[in-house]
């Protein structure tokens, strides 16, 4: 709360300093506002005198009256229509016809080192405005992009508050150098690699760097998609560029806004697992097929038992408070805001808190000198819960909850949490190594698996992560002469993070406590000089920008971990009590130097040309390849401006675009080209000493990945702008792919990093915006759809490259292969179930497996050699979708508004690794009711699910199509109902604006996927390991109630 008081007092100070007074002799001006192409008058249009806060709105007949100076300018703005600026020019009657927004040719688009009008655009750019970003209450800007822009596929990889998303602009164009776009916030290219920002010392996924920025501070997001648009960012542009522009103050309009919402989240679709008595049945039957005796004589006496999922999940609240001030005088403008966001995770013990502060100031200190400063500060704090599975180490909380024995109570009779996943005896007591048999000997402990009680993680393991970040960009613009500006800017992105994590001895299978702590400080300095020139004469219009940019990033990281603390009491607060604390320090730095230039030329407002080039030098690459040049060119033809089109009245605007260029991808860590030597500890005669060994394969030719991109597009609008559309077709060919490929261990290394391979993305995007109803009942529709096809065109002679994301000891479950897309799953093909009467000798089986018995699963012997092994694997799924779409319908009637946002991804598959736990025939884990109810039995000779068996003969090391599921989904991403009280009521209560709303997010999802949520990626943003689901923090559905108030 204290923060908000500071904001208020600062704002008041600014108001006092910058208040403006209108002193000219005023006249009364009146008029009527209509919508284009009809006689319909528009009610409630905002009418404002430019540069002041003097304004009114139109009445029931679209009429208005206002007292203003005769030489003033009136601004007319209305939702769904373009804003118009009309000079009064000594008139007393000003009638206005507003154009539909869909054809907003004069809309200003941010394009990197400058802006352009939409009409002049030759490249492919999607623009998302503030009201669309704010339409969905989200934690970070990347989430707001979901379903909003054609060609931009956003996936929430985890439901953990503050977790990262995975964004693919026009497909997967890199295999291992990263596929995330470059984010540029107010001119500063962001360090978006989580590793640059957070220390990652706490276990679990790292936080999303963009979660440090309040999405409501954003004025617009532009997505630069093709090479023409993106090439101004050269070696970092191959995955597209996302430009984020924050709100700035405007002269005269003083607005104060307060926003608040409160929401509740729930796990969308928990698994239905066996309860205690069902599980006891399962154990009995599995032991029967294993040739053992009955374990439980009366399974039904165990009742429901413990539902471990409901023990760890909860309904989690979240809330958001924001206060913002914008305004200013002719010379100084400000936009200041503060926000507080708090969200609990649906897994108990997890939360996320964020404090934001932003101050954007612009000042004209001299008629030709403008100073600008954009400053953002944020502090985030989160408590994390280890959700990833790592069975060999601790086990994740979700996998543990899924696999835990429902017959087991969460606590023992003394009220202490049960430690492990114990089996229980016939009396329901855990077999935990404390019981004696008749002869007084200890009955050996019996556990289902090595997982620790998931509740131990909630109640005993603490894991905290904090990040503070300041982003500031200061610039001076010298207007050297009309049309020629020199801009010098200095930007800083500074962050510090600290993560701590402790796992007590009780919650580790080996009984040794573990702690890790890390701190990371990142300082990035950006210095840029640009010269820009704009001129118009006769039939020509030219704008050009050129400049120099340098960015240096220095990271200092300190990481400590230790095991076996002498007491669990201190947690991570006292490393002196541990045995063998390991300290790791790291001081990477990297530098980026660039020369850049762009020329736009328009002839007769019909023929448009853009040429862009950027030369980038990066310290990260091999000494032979430090500099690269990235050129692009594009042309556009505004067909609708031609004389021969002047009779085509239904066509508002038509533009054809074509572009070609090369952009790069340099998102790799520093020093990868060098054969660095690292220290290793060795023992000699009970003393430690050190040695040095190389740990990277050297590669002095290491260079960026390059992408050639060809794009053709058409923009148009018809029926007076009532329908606007954009479509694009593109081919992106990426070469010099940076790949970490496994090398045989006999080389002394496990992998090498080098430029090998090519891949290609081809796609089609279509966007439509239409105003279906424009009278009292308004209805407009946004629709976008994008298709992308991905293909690996060369692996530089390698037959294939298996992935290495081993889970449960399963190897190479996805495979890169020429002619196939990235993300193809590779595994065995099931062949039904071995039935009674089948001939055991004729059915192929694993080499080490005994002959099959009825109820065993069969696999196809694809190579026909009579044995099932790794050479019987085939492609059994694709992690990449065929297409994705967003479909938004906004309705409003009087003060009510309704927005329905449907979003979908179609054609992708998911490997549900959870099935290796909960659809497993043996009793080392709980299983799903679906499996148990439909398992093979002599009475149910199904071909879907094998019989249960406590002692399966074989450990399967490959995935099969039994674990691959269709991941397509269509979901009602949000439904929002809002109400805005009438203007006269607001006036009465002295409010400028007010709105209350209710939003349901992810409320309804149509999918065949059986897991928690089809939006999932166990390996986060990884391209080679995409499409895996295991444990993880489930995505949620939520309900939000909010209010916005403007003063």
């Amino acid at each position, binding site marked *: 709360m204290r923060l908000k008081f500071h904001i208020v007092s600062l704002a008041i100070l600014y108001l006092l300093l910058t208040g403006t007074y209108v002193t000219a002799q005023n006249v009364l001006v009146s008029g009527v506002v209509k919508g284009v192409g009809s006689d319909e008058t528009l009610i409630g249009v905002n009418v404002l005198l430019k540069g002041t806060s003097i304004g009114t709105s139109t009445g029931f007949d679209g009429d208005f009256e206002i007292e203003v100076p005769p030489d003033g300018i009136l601004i007319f703005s209305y939702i769904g229509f373009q804003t118009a600026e009309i000079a009064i020019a000594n008139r007393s009657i000003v009638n206005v016809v507003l154009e539909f927004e869909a054809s907003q040719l004069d809309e200003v688009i941010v394009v990197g080192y400058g802006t352009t009008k939409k009409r002049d655009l030759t490249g492919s750019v999607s623009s998302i405005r503030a009201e669309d970003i704010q339409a969905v209450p989200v934690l970070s800007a990347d989430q707001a992009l979901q379903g909003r822009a054609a060609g931009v596929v956003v996936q929430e990889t985890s439901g953990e508050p503050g977790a990262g998303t995975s964004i693919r602009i026009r497909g997967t164009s890199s295999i291992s150098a990263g596929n995330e776009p470059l984010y540029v916030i107010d001119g500063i290219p962001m360090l978006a690699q989580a590793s640059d920002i957070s220390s990652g010392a706490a276990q679990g996924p790292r936080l999303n760097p963009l979660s440090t920025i309040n999405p409501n501070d954003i004025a617009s997001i532009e997505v630069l998609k093709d090479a023409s648009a993106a090439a101004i960012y050269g070696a970092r542009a191959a995955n597209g560029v996302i430009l984020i522009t924050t709100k700035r103050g405007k002269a005269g309009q003083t607005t104060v806004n307060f926003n608040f919402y409160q929401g509740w989240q729930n796990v969308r679709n928990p698994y239905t697992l066996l309860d205690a008595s069902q599980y006891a049945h399962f154990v009995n039957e599995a032991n029967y097929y294993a040739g053992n005796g009955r374990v439980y004589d009366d399974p039904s006496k165990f009742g429901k038992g413990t539902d471990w999922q409901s023990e760890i999940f909860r309904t989690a609240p979240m809330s958001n408070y924001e206060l913002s001030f914008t305004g200013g005088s002719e010379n100084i403008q400000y936009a200041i805001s503060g926000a507080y966001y708090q969200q609990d995770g649906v897994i108990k013990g997890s939360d996320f808190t964020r404090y934001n502060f932003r101050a954007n100031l612009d000042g004209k200190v001299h008629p030709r000198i403008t100073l600008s400063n954009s400053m953002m500060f944020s502090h985030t704090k989160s408590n994390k819960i280890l959700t990833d599975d790592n069975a060999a180490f601790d086990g994740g909380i979700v996998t543990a909850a899924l696999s835990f024995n429902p017959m087991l109570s969460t606590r023992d009779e003394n009220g202490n949490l049960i430690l492990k996943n114990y089996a229980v005896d016939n009396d329901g007591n855990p077999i935990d190594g404390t019981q004696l048999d008749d002869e007084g000997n200890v009955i050996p402990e019996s556990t289902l698996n090595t997982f620790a009680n998931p509740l131990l993680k909630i109640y005993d393991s603490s894991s905290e992560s904090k990040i503070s970040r300041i982003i500031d960009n200061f610039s001076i613009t010298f207007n050297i002469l009309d049309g020629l500006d020199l801009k010098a800017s200095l930007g800083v992105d500074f962050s510090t993070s600290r993560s701590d994590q402790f796992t007590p001895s009780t919650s580790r299978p080996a009984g040794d406590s573990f702690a890790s702590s890390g701190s990371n400080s990142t300082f990035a300095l950006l210095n840029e000089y640009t010269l820009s020139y704009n001129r118009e004469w006769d039939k020509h219009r030219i704008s050009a920008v050129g400049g120099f940019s340098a960015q240096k990033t220095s990271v200092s990281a300190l990481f400590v971990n230790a095991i076996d603390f002498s007491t669990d009491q201190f947690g991570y607060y006292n490393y002196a009590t541990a045995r063998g604390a390991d300290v790791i320090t790291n001081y990477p730095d990297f530098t980026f130097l660039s020369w850049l230039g762009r020329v736009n030329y328009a002839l007769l407002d019909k023929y448009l040309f853009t040429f862009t080039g950027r030369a980038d030098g990066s310290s990260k690459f091999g000494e032979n390849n430090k500099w690269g040049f990235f050129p692009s060119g594009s042309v556009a033809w505004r067909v609708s401006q031609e004389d021969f089109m002047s009779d085509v009245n239904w066509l508002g605007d038509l533009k054809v675009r074509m572009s070609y260029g090369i952009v790069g991808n340099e998102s790799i860590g520093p*020093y990868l080209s060098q054969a660095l030597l690292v220290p290793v500890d060795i023992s000699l005669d009970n003393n430690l000493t050190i040695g040095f*060994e190389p740990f990277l394969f050297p590669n002095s030719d290491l260079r960026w990945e390059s992408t050639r991109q060809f794009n053709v597009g058409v923009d148009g609008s018809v029926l007076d702008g009532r329908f606007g559309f954009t479509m694009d077709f593109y081919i992106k060919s990426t070469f010099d792919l940076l790949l970490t490929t496994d090398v045989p261990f006999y080389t002394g290394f496990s992998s090498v990093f080098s430029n090998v391979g090519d891949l290609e993305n081809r796609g089609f995007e279509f966007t439509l915006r239409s105003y279906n109803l424009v009278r009292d009942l308004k209805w407009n529709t946004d629709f976008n759809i994008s298709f992308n096809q991905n293909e690996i065109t060369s692996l530089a002679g390698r037959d294939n490259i298996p992935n290495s994301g081993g889970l449960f000891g399963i190897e190479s479950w996805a495979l890169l292969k020429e002619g196939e897309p990235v993300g193809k799953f590779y595994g065995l093909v099931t062949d039904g179930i071995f039935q009674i009467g089948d001939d055991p000798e004729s059915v192929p089986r694993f080499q080490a497996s005994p002959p099959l018995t009825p109820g065993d699963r069969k696999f196809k012997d694809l190579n026909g050699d009579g044995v099932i092994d790794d050479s019987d694997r085939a492609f059994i799924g694709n992690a990449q979708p065929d297409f994705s779409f967003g479909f938004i319908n906004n309705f409003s009637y009087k003060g009510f508004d309704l927005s329905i946002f449907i979003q979908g991804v179609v054609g992708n598959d998911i490997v549900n690794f959870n099935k290796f736990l909960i659809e497993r025939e043996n009793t080392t884990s709980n299983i799903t009711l679906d499996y148990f109810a439909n398992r093979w039995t002599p009475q149910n000779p199904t071909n879907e699910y094998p019989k249960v068996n406590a002692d399966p003969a074989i450990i399967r090391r490959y995935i099969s199509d039994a674990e691959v599921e269709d991941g397509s989904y269509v979901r009602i991403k949000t439904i929002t109902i809002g109400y805005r009280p009438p203007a006269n009521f607001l006036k009465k209560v002295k409010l400028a604006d007010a709105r209350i709303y209710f939003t349901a997010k992810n409320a309804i999802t149509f999918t065949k996927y059986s897991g928690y949520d089809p939006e999932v990626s166990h390996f986060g943003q990884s391209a080679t390991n995409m499409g895996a689901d295991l444990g993880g923090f489930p995505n949620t559905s939520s309900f939000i109630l909010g209010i916005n108030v403007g003063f």
Partner: protein
Amino acid sequence: MTLKLKSYRSKVYTSRLSRSLLLGCLVISLLHFTCKDALVENPKSALTPGNFYITASDAQLAVNAAYDHMGAGTNNSDFGGVYFNTYYSLQALASDNGKAGPQNEPNTVQLDLFRHDPSNTFTTDIWEDCYKTISLANIAISKIPDIDMDEQLKNRFLGEVHFIRGMMYFELVRLFGDVPLLITPTEDLSLLTIERTPADEVYLRILADLEIAEVVLPFQYSGADIGRATKGAAIAYLARVYMTLENWSQVAEKSSELIGFGIYNLMEDYADVFKIVNNNGPEVIFATQFTLNNNAIWETSQFNVRTLPLALNRNSLSWELPTLDAYNAFDIMDRRWEVTFQTSFLEDDGTIVNFDPHIFKYWDQEAEPSASSGGNDFFNMRYSDVLLMYAEALNEVNAGPTQEAYDAVNEVRRRARFADGVVRNTLPDLEGMTKQSFREAVWLERRFEFVWEGQRWFDLVRQERLKSRVEDAKEEVTVDIPKHNLFPIPQRERNINPNLTQNPGY
């Protein structure tokens, strides 16, 4: 236009504010981005080959690194080096000596039941760690000759890494048969398609490496160097290589040479061999060094965690257990039986914990009461091994056991009669035996002496009785010969290099 520009100029250049702002920007810029070296990487927290392999101290650090991946394997993806845990566990599991514990760990179970496949992590880890060690030895062997330093020390360093390389290839060739033979540092990707080198050729390289080591290595070290490879280690390994090759006259010659040095002795009591204080004692010819030290995590040995019973109130997990066949094979008065196995334990609070037989020989209860880690070294070569090799070789070279052969084996048996200062009336000296009965007596002696010391599978394969012994000890297991005389080439390697053939049967 020009007029405007002029007037503007005068304004701007007289504006102190803007001038200082512009200057300020430029200065900051220049401070941080002097273009010349801006793109050159100078990592602050790591060495590069350009600034390493120059001094005698660099040479020592390069040699030390090769030892790391035999023991702790600090930077290994799989945690632990060759002899950290997988090696001796594999030798026990894939034999009549050991079986998988209650953890039901799939890789352990596979080896126990002889169902191991090419993806078994134990064999893959041993392969990886052996080759990592070889690659580090190769770097040292190629870089050290050019370092300007004391020649004697240089030769000793080279001797150490030749010994290590020979030893690693010896492990590989015995476990996997034909293996890729690499003797120079890895510098490019041309290695990705090489084929397996015939075992005969690998053995020639092993002998050559050990012979270099034999010549240049010292008998003993002092101070901080204790634990490094010695002349004795090279000679004893030569004997072991020759034994594997059944070149018995060479085995006899090499073991006799080592016995003749007179610097190695058996400890008086078998129990003392495994006391941490005797880690580099007179019986130890070469050991993988582990440290019981507050700063050590992976540098401690894992015997106790793996072998002691889960039922103990300690950090012990029964990963692998001895078979009853091994437990019952001993004369119960044999000192080695009670040192090697325990079936009950008296806890501090007076309770007695009972359990199936577990391996207790590595637990030095006084030095390491918590058993959570261990300072015990892994004994790659003990003096009793040389005595038994000598006895076996003399029996093979001659028509039967000679007196020297009896003396050598009886020295080992005599020690087994000694317990806590008392000489027991058991294990009489061997005498009057045929060639075959003596041979089998020595084999049995090897079993009693080296339980869980990484020898059993090798011995059974060499003695051509893997199938009969294992099937006797584990009735549910079927052993395929010759398939199980080798382990499979790791699948990972074959995925990347299809030119690597697989061993028959896998």
